[in-house]
């Protein structure tokens, strides 16, 4: 390996080293604050190192990895989200008195896995990244092991994720058997629009199952509410942002590279998944009474929206998908931050009842939560609106009318349950309200930091989006340029 190779892998090396350092620190002396601080520093460093790497992109480490601006952007997203999750977790875990420090090792490793996905261009690295991410997540989800819901969620995620990994692997094996390469670029060249044999088709279908599970799209969505509900709130935020962001980065890279738009049957499969996700996700959230479950169901729908951008298959689609994912990550992170900050020990404030009349007790938190809900619903002057606007224009440009119509109609259903939460927060308080211990606790400094940052980002993105849009277009256009030129 050359110096440039090492240099371009700097962020991953930083994260991996930090994981080892934390292990050593734990062996020497357990100190929650120090470990959290090291993790924070690692994420910050890794994030900053990305700016330096732009000098050498695109850089390929054959055959496994490619570091281009597209990957850098997604890594930035992953590190920033992990940074926020770490801050939240520190706040959240403080009230527990068992071994907390290992949590941060798992967090670092999970982020490592997700960023590996963003730079992978080979089945081996894809599999490794995915498994590093998943195995860390099993443990993270079940981390508060004294808590039944945690264990149940961990078990469900473990079994189902392993099952979906098996599907993904088998699919990869079939694709390999049929095409003779495990490298995305080689595959793209081998295919270049040629017809797919039945073996390859079944292989791709099985891969869609594996990826679809991680993205929690219909019909692979059944696990989502239970895991979102059962996991500790910061971990839920992690699944919703980092895990899905990494996998989506992979999905875009892989399917744009092999130019999925030439294969009608694959496009139809994804369209069916997208439409089903938008409808099922929104309808399932409709009358749900648990905020974490509402957000879980809504995440199914949002991934459906993302697939609409991906399926548009024009020069706007990668931009639109990335924009939307960024906006969604900011928003959902904000929403789960509030859930996490309001939660007390072993008792999360996740029931809709807990939020009734919240505005009269915690006006600022409620205002922020309202902003997050508006963004999820796609109301103008929030990040969510900009994202949705771009998806719609991508869809309209490619005349994907069915997808666009379903998106618009299901968004209306979505409005209903987001506003239900808002209405609950602003309804007049009653005297016999169940008082959650976490609701009245004052928010710590780290919590304020995360919330303030996310709120500013959300509104900034909504009101001054042009800067974000140009940044994203500059960063991710590399993906399309590289692969589209190759195909032409």
């Amino acid at each position, binding site marked *: 390996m050359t110096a440039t190779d090492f240099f371009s892998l700097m962020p991953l090396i930083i994260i991996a080293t930090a994981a080892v350092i934390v292990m050593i620190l734990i062996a020497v002396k357990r100190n929650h604050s120090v470990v959290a601080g090291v993790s924070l520093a690692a994420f910050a460093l890794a994030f900053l190192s990305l700016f330096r790497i732009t000098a050498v992109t695109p850089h390929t480490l054959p055959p496994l990895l490619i570091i281009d601006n597209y990957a850098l952007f997604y890594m930035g997203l992953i590190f920033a989200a992990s940074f926020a999750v770490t801050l939240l977790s520190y706040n959240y875990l403080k009230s527990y008195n068992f071994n907390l420090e290992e949590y941060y090792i798992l967090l670092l490793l999970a982020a490592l896995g997700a960023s590996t996905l963003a730079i992978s261009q080979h*089945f*081996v690295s894809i*599999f*490794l990244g995915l*498994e590093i991410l*998943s*195995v860390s997540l*099993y*443990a993270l989800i*079940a981390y508060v*092991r004294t808590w*039944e*819901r945690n*264990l*149940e*969620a*961990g*078990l469900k995620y*473990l*079994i189902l994720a*392993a*099952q979906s*990994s*098996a599907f993904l*692997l*088998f699919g*990869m*094996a*079939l694709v*390999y*058997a049929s095409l*003779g390469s*495990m490298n995305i670029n080689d595959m793209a060249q081998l295919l270049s629009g040629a017809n797919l044999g039945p*073996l390859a088709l079944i292989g791709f279908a099985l891969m869609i199952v594996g990826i679809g599970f991680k993205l929690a799209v219909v019909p692979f969505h059944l696990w989502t*509410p*239970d895991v979102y*509900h*059962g996991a500790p709130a910061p971990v839920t935020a992690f699944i919703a942002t980092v895990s899905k962001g990494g996998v989506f980065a992979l999905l875009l890279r892989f399917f744009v590279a092999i130019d999925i738009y030439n294969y009608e049957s694959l496009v139809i499969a994804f369209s069916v998944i997208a439409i089903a996700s938008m409808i099922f996700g929104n309808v399932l959230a409709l009358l*749900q009474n648990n905020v974490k*479950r509402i957000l879980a169901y809504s995440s199914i729908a949002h991934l459906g929206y993302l697939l609409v951008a991906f399926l548009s298959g024009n020069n706007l689609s990668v931009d639109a998908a990335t924009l939307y994912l960024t906006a969604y990550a900011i928003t959902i992170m904000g929403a789960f931050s509030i859930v996490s900050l309001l939660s007390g020990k072993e008792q999360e404030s996740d029931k809709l009842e807990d939020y009734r009349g919240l505005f009269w007790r915690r006006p600022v938190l409620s205002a922020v939560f309202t902003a997050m809900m508006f963004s999820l619903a796609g109301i103008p002057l929030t990040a969510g609106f900009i994202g949705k606007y771009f998806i719609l224009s991508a869809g309209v440009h490619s005349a994907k009318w069915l997808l666009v119509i379903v998106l618009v109609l299901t968004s209306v259903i979505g409005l209903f349950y987001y506003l239900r939460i808002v209405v609950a927060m602003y309804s007049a308080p009653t005297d016999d309200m169940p008082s959650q211990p976490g609701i009245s606790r004052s928010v710590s400094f780290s919590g304020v930091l995360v919330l303030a940052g996310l709120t500013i980002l959300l509104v900034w993105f909504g009101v001054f989006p042009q800067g974000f849009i140009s940044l994203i277009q500059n960063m991710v256009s590399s993906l399309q340029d590289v692969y589209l030129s190759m195909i032409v």
Partner: protein
Amino acid sequence: MISIPMEFGLILAGTLFVLGLIGLMVRRNIIFVLMSIEIMINAAGAAFIFAGAKWGEPDGQIMFLFILAMSAAEVAVGLGLILQIYHKFQTLDGDTVSKMRG
């Protein structure tokens, strides 16, 4: 030496995979569920080896090594989790470990 066509190997792997799936769907004991998953993952690994053999490359076998390593990690975490679950629920019946629904 008689060479066996890859398709036969893939059919074997597929059969194993489906067997694992069936085990996953019908078994209630979590340990057996975990074992079923191992069968599925190893079936996929076998498919890789057959595919690699077809192309005359070592890549399939390399992939199998990775798969072994990762499935070992998975089983380790899984068994740890099962231990905790037995501790808490006093049972290994997957169906009783379902408080969350709806």
